[in-house]
């Protein structure tokens, strides 16, 4: 029983010969926010970054992509259907990358009720300029016609018993994976 170097790779006991790095998930980080707050509406022509969910996510290889998924919870519909939500990634060189695909929110125009803003999306390596290094991840929004005055919910993000006396403190979550294609 042994770990053996072979002509092109290695073999553990009698298992298959491994000839390349088999890792598919290089990096994983998550972001959490459970503070009740009322984010700002957008100003005209300016993307509003509601939440910097993950800071300095270190992308290891130029070929990898980034999967971003998560859920934020708010209270009371305001801009709907809107369609201006997006996820943004900012490289440490200052370049921004934005994607609307995979960003949806669900609400009801019925007063003080729950709104869920959900994200499942993927930036390919090419879409991120095949860069390595640190990225910051943001939940952001701006209307497609660049008008201001929008927001995904009118009242509180991460609402609590101030909104419903039965409620536990609510919280939001973001998961980020670096994936090899």
């Amino acid at each position, binding site marked *: 029983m042994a770990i053996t*170097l*072979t*002509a*092109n*790779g*290695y073999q553990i006991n009698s298992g298959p010969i491994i*000839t*390349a*790095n*088999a*890792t*598919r*998930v*290089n*990096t*994983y*980080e*998550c972001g*959490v926010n*459970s503070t009740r707050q009322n984010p700002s509406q957008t100003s005209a022509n300016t993307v509003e970054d509601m939440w910097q969910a993950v800071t300095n996510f270190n992308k290891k290889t130029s070929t990898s992509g980034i999967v971003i*998924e*998560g*859920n934020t*919870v708010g*209270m009371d519909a305001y801009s709907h259907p809107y369609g201006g939500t997006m996820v943004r990634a900012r490289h440490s060189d200052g370049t921004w990358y934005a994607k609307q695909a995979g960003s949806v929110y*669900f*609400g*009801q*125009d*019925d007063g*003080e*009720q*729950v709104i*869920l803003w*959900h994200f499942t999306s993927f930036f390919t390596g090419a879409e991120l300029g095949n860069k390595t290094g640190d990225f910051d991840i943001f939940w952001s929004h701006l209307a497609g016609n660049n008008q201001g005055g929008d927001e995904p919910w009118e009242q509180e993000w991460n*609402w*609590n*018993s101030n*909104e*419903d*006396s*039965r*409620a*536990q*403190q*609510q*919280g*939001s*979550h973001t*998961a980020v*994976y670096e994936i090899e294609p």
Partner: protein
Amino acid sequence: MAQLTGTSLVYGSGASQTAGGGKVISYGYGEYNTRTSLPNSNNYIFWDAATINRKNAGSDFHVVALMPGHDWNSFPYGGCFVEMKDSSGSKYRSYYGASYLCCGEGGGQEITFKVDWTFRDSAISNNTGNWTVHFGYQSINGTNNRWCNIWNPSGSDDGRGYQKSSTCFVEEIIYG
């Protein structure tokens, strides 16, 4: 010939590797598709959803789940939770990352309960072995509630409906 050179493994192709192993090292999955009436209750667990065998004492758990309901009862409420239990029986609960939405049209409509949460290693024990995932509800003021009247609706709730099912996926992850 592949070579070990100091801190690198160099493959026959010339590619080198300086760090080993993936980040996702274990999975668990649960599914439940029985139409169920939920009780008006407090601190109530309605689903023991999945088991995962934890390999590493310093790992995190990322839990993702979708659960369909029918016919609103308590809303907005805000008492739903996701809970994990370790191999010794200790429990770790999060009300964060566990939310549901009612159709605003009225009662007798669809409800969706969505969970997305990471239990960081610092928030749980370092026990390895089998951990289980659970979902439930508890108000902060002690009142009895429920997030829907019917969990996993079927053709009994809408003649057009298939039997709906709840799903839970949990992964063990090495952070960073």
